[in-house]
């Protein structure tokens, strides 16, 4: 499916996806679909914008995703709402799947996920009966210790209702970051070459060795989220990580349990940071390489719907600032492998010739069509890419869709007497990711700035004797931060939410780094526990926030100008 099709969906099932804050441009399409009569079902613990305009809001308790999905499948199975013909001809493993979901009656699920049984029934029936239904899922699914299971279960929900291979149907990961699809497509993964070709496959290895004229390793690399382990806990010096080259990323702000990340960055012998502005990771860097921003270089970008698009330079970068690819070439050459390209098109041509699924996506085609969704295997202009990945048959070797779901695994760290609230990270409109870009934009800083907010139910605020806007201390066993209280009925009692971009109100001081999904290695950003404490001396707290912020900016060499300079 493609992103523009969202507007034509008859039913949109938003699962753990808050488009209004993470991707306002995609949310616009959801709003248009609604205007055109689409039914919206939203599963989210908060009243997000997608939940507010939804026909059915399944306000589940955080960390219980799979229980809700299994229960919806249970209803569809028991009430005979399945697409039996599709299941018989197009899929495998249905019986095994049914065995798992049998237990998850709506009543059983209600006990865990706190969504009323009848509402689960209503949502399941509405989804199953829609002529075409589209599932959109976001980080509310992916950032849990049990994440890939839920993705597969949502995939199975679409399988059992035959919602594949046709317009405005299927299941769409709306991804967490801009061009994260592109990063994966280009092989920025520890186990793949570009185009999802495994490093462990000898044929693939031979192909890349021939193309590049070097010996290549057939061993998987280390996932990003395992880095602290390989620095702090690994005893064998040959297996330890000694150098860390970080670009376009700020792990000291974005990774879970930043206390541990700082420890790791301090211990690593050599850190290189390559970015457009200074950030928290830069404080640990031995070398800082300035590089160009998104509008200062050419390239190709992948949208979450597998669509390649050109990006073009619109402004000249400052003098002596190189693009990422030029820096990589020079470093590689300095290290003994001569790498030289004349422009991004030359790199792209080499890449597509080594990736069968991308082979036909030439610059010429990208220019002409605007977007080409892979697989696009032929350079002939008649191959315009693939809108529906699973049309007629699935991409599994036997051409069939595979049912799968699993039993619920609760989050690792839950509420207790000492830390009675749950804690989750979320997004907010206006600031992007870790704010390396938007934090340096005065207009956006003006709209929303340090130390951020913690969203809390007014009842919890009342019990703690704190008011909307008060500075509070948020803490758990890993760390603490100071932020402002945002009292809102949009969140349930007992649950708290913070956005992860603030340097002072830094919620990743609290998040848990040790519960990764076993397949994706994504951390459980969406669940841990915390306690919120009232701060009696508000003035002192504000002074603390201001001073910390100014110090940090000064240490980062941020030139303070105009009205801000005291």
């Amino acid at each position, binding site marked *: 499916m493609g992103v523009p099709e969202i507007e034509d969906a008859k039913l949109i099932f938003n699962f753990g996806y808050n488009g209004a804050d993470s991707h306002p441009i995609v*949310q616009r399409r959801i*709003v248009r679909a609604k*205007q055109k009569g689409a039914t919206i079902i939203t599963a989210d613990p908060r009243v997000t914008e997608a939940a507010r305009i939804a026909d059915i809001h399944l306000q589940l308790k955080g960390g219980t995703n799979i229980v809700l999905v299994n229960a919806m499948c249970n209803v569809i199975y028991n009430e005979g709402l399945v697409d039996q013909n599709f299941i018989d001809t197009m899929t495998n493993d249905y019986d095994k799947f049914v065995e798992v979901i049998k237990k998850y009656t709506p009543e059983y699920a209600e006990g865990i996920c706190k969504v009323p049984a009848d509402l689960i029934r209503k949502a399941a029936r509405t989804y199953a009966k829609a002529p075409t239904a589209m599932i959109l899922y976001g980080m509310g699914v992916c950032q849990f210790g049990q994440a890939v299971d839920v993705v597969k279960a949502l995939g199975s929900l679409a399988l059992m209702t035959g919602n594949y291979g046709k317009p405005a149907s299927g299941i769409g990961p709306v991804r967490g970051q801009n061009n994260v699809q592109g990063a994966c497509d280009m092989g920025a993964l520890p186990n793949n070459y570009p185009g999802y070709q495994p490093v462990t496959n000898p044929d693939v290895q031979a192909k890349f060795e021939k193309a590049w004229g070097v010996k290549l390793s057939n061993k998987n690399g280390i996932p990003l989220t395992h880095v602290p382990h390989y620095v702090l806990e690994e005893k064998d010096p040959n297996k330890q990580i000694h150098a860390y080259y970080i670009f376009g990323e700020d792990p000291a702000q974005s990774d879970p349990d930043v206390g541990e990340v700082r420890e790791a960055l301090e211990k690593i012998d050599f850190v290189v940071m390559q970015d457009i502005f200074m950030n928290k990771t830069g404080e640990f860097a031995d070398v800082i390489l300035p590089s160009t921003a998104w509008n200062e270089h050419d390239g190709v970008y992948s949208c979450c719907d597998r669509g390649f698009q050109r990006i073009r330079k619109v402004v000249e970068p400052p003098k002596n600032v190189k693009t990422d690819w030029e820096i990589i070439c020079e470093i590689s050459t300095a290290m003994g492998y001569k790498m030289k390209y004349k422009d991004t098109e030359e790199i792209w041509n080499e890449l597509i010739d080594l990736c069968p699924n991308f082979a036909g996506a030439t610059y010429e085609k990208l220019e002409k069509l605007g977007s080409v969704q892979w697989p696009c295997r032929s350079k002939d202009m008649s191959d315009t890419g693939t809108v529906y990945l699973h049309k007629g048959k699935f991409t599994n070797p036997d051409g069939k869709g595979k049912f799968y779901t699993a039993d619920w695994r609760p989050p690792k760290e839950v509420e207790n007497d000492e830390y009675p609230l749950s804690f989750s990270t979320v997004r907010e*409109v206006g600031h992007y990711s870790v704010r390396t870009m938007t934090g340096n934009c*005065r207009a*956006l800083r003006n709209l929303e700035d340090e130390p951020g907010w913690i969203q809390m139910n007014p009842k919890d605020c009342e019990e703690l004797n704190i008011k909307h806007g008060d500075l509070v201390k948020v803490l758990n066993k890993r760390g603490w931060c100071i932020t402002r209280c945002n009292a809102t009925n949009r969140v349930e009692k007992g649950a708290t939410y913070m956005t992860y971009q603030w340097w002072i109100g830094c919620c990743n001081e609290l998040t848990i780094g040790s519960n990764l999904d076993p397949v994706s290695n994504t951390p459980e950003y969406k669940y841990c526990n915390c306690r919120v404490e009232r701060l009696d001396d508000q003035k002192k707290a504000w002074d603390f926030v201001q001073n910390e912020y100014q110090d940090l900016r000064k240490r980062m060499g941020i030139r303070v100008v105009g*009205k801000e300079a005291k």
Partner: protein
Amino acid sequence: MSKYSRYVVADSSKCTGCKACELACFAEHNKKSNGVGFTVGTVEVPVTPKLYLTKLEAYCMPIQCKHCEDAPCLNACQKHAIYRTEDKQVIVDENKCIGCKDCVMACPFGAIAILPKSEKGTFKLQKDKEVVKVASKCDLCEGIEGGPACVRVCPNEALQIIDADCETLAKNIRAAEGLYASRF
């Protein structure tokens, strides 16, 4: 010319809370006086929109002045700093305003805020060095080409200018059509 003043209302079912209206409002009103251009780097003063995104459990929409026909703010202002234009829009004269806040108290919608006054990128100061603050509210982008900036930029077309006269007529027609159709 319309019998009534016009005003902007937002459709909460379309609004996604992106704040594009707030930024556009600020940018339009500060182009001349504060040199705010099209790029973000030109912003030197605090972003002070004249409409306010309001997010509750069931609603999300910007709130702004309705240019009331019997305007409580205008009637409350002892300095005659709030006046009505020929087009019947209710406008604050920032040069006459002393920031007494009577209009803030009088407005039933919270559409007026007291904000620091800046010109050419610097704040105006009083004798005691305190920044001059005056009433600020929607002026329907008076004198700005293209009309209200908020309406123009909303990606979801959630904002529209309401002309009460046209609104009445359109509804009369819809009602008549409904009554006529129901005979068959």
